[in-house]
């Protein structure tokens, strides 16, 4: 009995291995493997069955058949809808990121200059909206931006405009929504970076006669490059694949890839085309993702 118990304990991996293996296996199974499956299904073709695609790899009567259909990718490349959806996503995400940076940088800078106790409160105020509900924050803008909405009523009352502006269901509404929803994710990494900035460098610059605007461009901004990259990627990458905001605030002419993928999947039930869309999106995003990742793992693995 004790011999058997001894053998069994030998089989169980040692603590150290287990600590590593649990998260590793979980991520392998639920993060990496699913991507391989998306790649596989993108080479399949749609079928009326459950699940709604044809098998790619089949083993029957001693033969292994591999049917790869490149049609989905050709279809994406030739149909102008998909090309303009990718282009539209990139354009809207880029503009939104830029606006977020222009608003978020001064805000993060101001927070970093405050006394420590105030910093905590201000950071809490910046993060609080994002802890509520993403959906409800986007919904808030539906009431504000619509033709009879509060913004138009307010501007009409002020006499700035004679006729209501059409903002709702346009790309501008989508950009406003993205900036509103993702602004906290821009501010946080920028703040984390700016708060560590060595003040004596700024003093040195001003002692040597540098004007404050010059010091900002030559000292502060280059030193906060890591924060700018991290914040921008945290906004840009999810914004490219955004579905909720274009669906609720955008109009028929808002073409974004997340929305197109959703419609292919849920409305057309074309899983292979949806998978191909995901693979191409990933291919486009691989550069920004690597950029973010390099920064993030440097932060994570940095040994003080």
């Amino acid at each position, binding site marked *: 009995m004790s011999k058997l118990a001894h053998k069994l304990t030998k089989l169980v991996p040692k603590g150290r291995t287990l600590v590593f293996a649990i998260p590793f296996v979980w991520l392998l199974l639920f993060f990496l493997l699913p991507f391989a499956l998306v790649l596989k299904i993108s080479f399949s073709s749609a079928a009326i069955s459950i699940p709604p695609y044809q098998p790619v790899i089949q083993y029957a009567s001693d033969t292994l058949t591999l049917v790869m259909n490149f049609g989905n990718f050709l279809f994406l490349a030739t149909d102008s809808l998909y090309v303009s959806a990718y282009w539209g996503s990139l354009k809207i995400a880029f503009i939104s990121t830029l606006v977020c940076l222009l608003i978020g940088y001064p805000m993060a800078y101001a927070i970093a200059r405050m006394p420590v106790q105030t910093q905590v409160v201000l950071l809490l105020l910046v993060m609080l909206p994002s802890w509520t*509900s993403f959906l409800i924050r986007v919904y808030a803008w539906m009431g504000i931006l619509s033709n009879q909405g509060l913004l138009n009523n307010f501007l009409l009352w002020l006499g700035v405009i004679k006729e209501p502006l059409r903002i709702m269901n346009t790309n501008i509404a989508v950009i406003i929504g993205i900036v509103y929803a993702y602004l906290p994710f821009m501010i946080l990494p920028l703040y984390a970076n700016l708060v560590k900035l060595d003040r004596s460098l700024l003093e040195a610059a001003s002692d040597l006669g540098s004007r404050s605007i010059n010091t900002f461009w030559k000292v502060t901004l280059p030193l906060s490059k890591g924060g700018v990259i991290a914040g921008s990627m945290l906004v840009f990458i999810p914004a490219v694949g955004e579905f909720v905001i274009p669906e609720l605030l955008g109009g028929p002419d808002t073409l974004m890839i997340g929305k197109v993928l959703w419609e292919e999947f849920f409305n057309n039930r074309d899983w292979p085309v949806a998978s191909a869309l995901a693979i191409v999106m990933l291919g486009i995003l691989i550069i920004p993702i690597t950029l973010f990742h390099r920064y993030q793992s440097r932060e994570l693995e940095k040994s003080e």
Partner: protein
Amino acid sequence: MKKPHFSTVMLVLGLLFLYVPMFILVFYSFNASRLVTVWAGFSTRWYFELFRDQQLLSAIWTSLKIAFYSASMAVCIGTLAAFVMTRFRRFRGRTALSSMITAPLVMPEVITGLSLLLLFVHMAQIIGWPADRGIATIWIAHTTFCSAYVAVVVSSRLREVDLSIEEAAMDLGATPFKTFFLITLPMIAPALVSGWLLAFTLSLDDLVIASFVSGPGATTLPMLVFSSVRLGVSPKINALATLIILAVSLAAFIAWYLMRRSEEKRRRQLPDLE
């Protein structure tokens, strides 16, 4: 009078931009009219309608259950991953793990949702589980992306903790296992709590991933809200939004208050260090 710094002006404007839409939501939840943009007197009728809506109440319950399970599991996996990244020496497995754990932070939700759905479909074909998609599949999906956030929060705390305390415990003969539970865990407990809370709110809030991996049996709160919001604005949603904002603000205020009190206590105990 001193002119305020440009960045301070931007901070005030930015905070207004973040909060005005939420105040408008709260304000119009007390509107008697069905039209959200026309004010027709004070009323609390939308709140009463909210509490009579059985479908909504059961969706809230489903969401809370999923969020609780996901946050708890994500804290386990995220903490283990954070421990590997900060306490193990560099080897190929560690690099692979840290790439995989941070990737969900920026992955577009539609891709994560689609990929996990395909995994569950394949699993059902090969091992027969999950036969029905629902709470369990959403739990797995949420645990995976929430672990990433927990790992970031916990690893930044693990890096701050003084290593010499752990080394001292091991020098005195404590096993690594015992050291972790008696020394490391109490020191990183605040990070575990904030990681859990973050994971809880992220899971509660997710619409896209849950829509992909859910089945007909499980409707979460965001799924229900989304299908109603798609049809246009409704004061009932404003009432729900007000309650969510109230709950989150209250929780944040309590967290802030507790944090400040413990900080003050620590400062009083160590007067010389200031």
